């Protein structure tokens, strides 16, 4: 007899952890959409944000002030990256830009190490993590909190892109960079805004991931978790990053629980990649990847 209640519990747990994947993936999508750069340094930025915040708190800076300070640091970091690394490389082939961000991720990690040291820090966001039950299903309070924060952030971004001029400029640049240039949009300004946004995403994701895993250098490896999400959802779609993250989260947990026993367990770590690989064969642009709107 199939235990539905248990299945739902697994599913909900998976979806909630998927939210965390979405968070990381959104940082990628923002930059990829506007500048065609796959920013490998997103993970390092996330680590840097979490580490900066934790270190400030450990040095006695109050929670809110540390948050604000880290935010400022991330915004400055984003703008600095755009200025010093990407602007000089504009119009270079995508692989060059990718390599630049790969190098950048090591520079950021090294800088973080130099600045804050290498030990593991615990990060307590002050959220009670005792699970509670809804209709007999156990739900992690922390996961729910993380999902709410992520949801609020996505909603804010959506409103920003929909209703502000910078948002419109962002969508225009993402749609057709050459036309945006011809129209007179200042691309460097749009890019700086995008890097700022991805810095904010890195901060939020860094704090949530850091609270769960502890703030340590392996945190920067969560970028690898984002890759199957991007393959599934499409590299250039925020909606795709959200749906892809949820799907990957759910698939991982369900695979671990229901398929894992046949392989002796431990498939959670790579199940997502297998799914992503299969998906690449069927639909390379992802679920929501750019299907050009074309009149026939």
């Amino acid at each position: 007899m199939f235990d539905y209640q248990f299945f739902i519990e697994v599913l909900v747990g998976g979806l909630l952890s998927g939210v965390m994947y979405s968070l990381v993936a959104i940082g990628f999508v923002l930059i990829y959409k506007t500048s065609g750069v796959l920013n490998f340094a997103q993970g390092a930025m996330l680590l840097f944000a979490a580490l900066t915040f934790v270190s400030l708190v450990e040095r006695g800076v109050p929670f809110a002030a540390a948050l604000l300070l880290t935010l400022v640091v991330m915004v400055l970091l984003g703008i600095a990256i755009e200025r010093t690394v990407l602007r000089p490389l504009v119009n270079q082939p995508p692989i060059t830009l990718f390599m630049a961000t790969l190098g950048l991720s090591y520079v950021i990690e090294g800088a973080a190490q130099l600045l804050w040291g290498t030990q593991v820090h615990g990060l307590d966001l002050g959220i009670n993590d005792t699970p509670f039950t809804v209709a007999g299903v156990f739900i992690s309070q922390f996961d729910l909190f993380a999902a709410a924060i992520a949801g609020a952030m996505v909603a804010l971004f959506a409103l920003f892109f929909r209703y502000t001029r910078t948002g419109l400029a962002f969508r225009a640049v993402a749609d057709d960079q050459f036309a945006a240039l011809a129209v007179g949009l200042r691309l460097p300004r749009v890019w700086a805004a995008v890097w700022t946004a991805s810095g904010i995403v890195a901060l939020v994701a860094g704090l949530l991931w850091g609270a769960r895993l502890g703030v340590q250098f392996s945190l920067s490896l969560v970028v690898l978790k984002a890759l199957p999400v991007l393959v599934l959802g499409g590299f250039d779609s925020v909606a795709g990053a959200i749906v892809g993250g949820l799907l990957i989260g759910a698939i991982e947990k369900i695979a671990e629980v229901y398929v894992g026993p046949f392989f002796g367990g431990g498939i959670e770590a790579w199940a997502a990649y297998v799914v992503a690989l299969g998906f690449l064969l069927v639909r390379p642009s992802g679920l929501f990847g750019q299907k050009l709107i074309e009149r026939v």
Partner: protein
Amino acid sequence: MSSPESQLEVRDAHATYGGAVLALHGVSLTVRRGEIVALLGANGAGKSTTLKAISNLLHAERGQITHGQIVFDGLDVAVTSSANLVRRGLVPVLEGRHCFRTLTVEENLITGAIGRDARRSEVRADLERVYTLFPKLSERRRSLSGLTSGGEQQMTAIGRALMSRPRLLVLDEPSMGLAPLVVEAIFRTLKQLNVEEGLSILVAEQNSTVALRYADRATVLENGRTVLEGAAPDLRGRADIKALYLGSPEESAAHLAASADPPSHDHAAA
């Protein structure tokens, strides 16, 4: 030798792509205030490259001006960013329209206003003006641009440029892929803007018949250089021009072979 009434001067411009492919070698043309100038030439003659050089957009396609000078309103175009050129009133309408396909028609138009940091009240007024010029766009304002017809996209592209309040509009092949009636309508609107508001227009066209009907003067390019320049009515009256410069190379060769009169005086006219 820049005369006071000339708004745009291209002097002996040379340009390359990727540092190797020579695209222009010796393009000269002038647009005076309140004038419509047609830039004519066969496929690959260098019309698009010339227009991109004028708007300082070549670098986006890894091209650059290697020799010569382009001056708009006393401003050296090569050292002024395309964004600043738009703010100074030199506004391009790209070949193939290049609308933002995932944005609505109205959002497309508004991007033109962002380019010059317009105030909200100005944006509203300018939108109404564009909708008056192109009533069709008013009907489609909420549609995604990618789902509108070719003619509507061309109107959107021109409308978007008008939102930047241009003083010189630079259009690349506005007739491309459009039905003759739509082409007429678009050129009529351009002429109306030119007559009523004194907007200067430089338009590159393969469709020389239409372009010469609306233009005051024309410059003809061949193989990346200016070969002929003159008043549009004069050029319209000369049957040989089309066969010589604007058709395919085979046609030109055939015409040359058939013609007893060598075309050397055309070069002298330039």
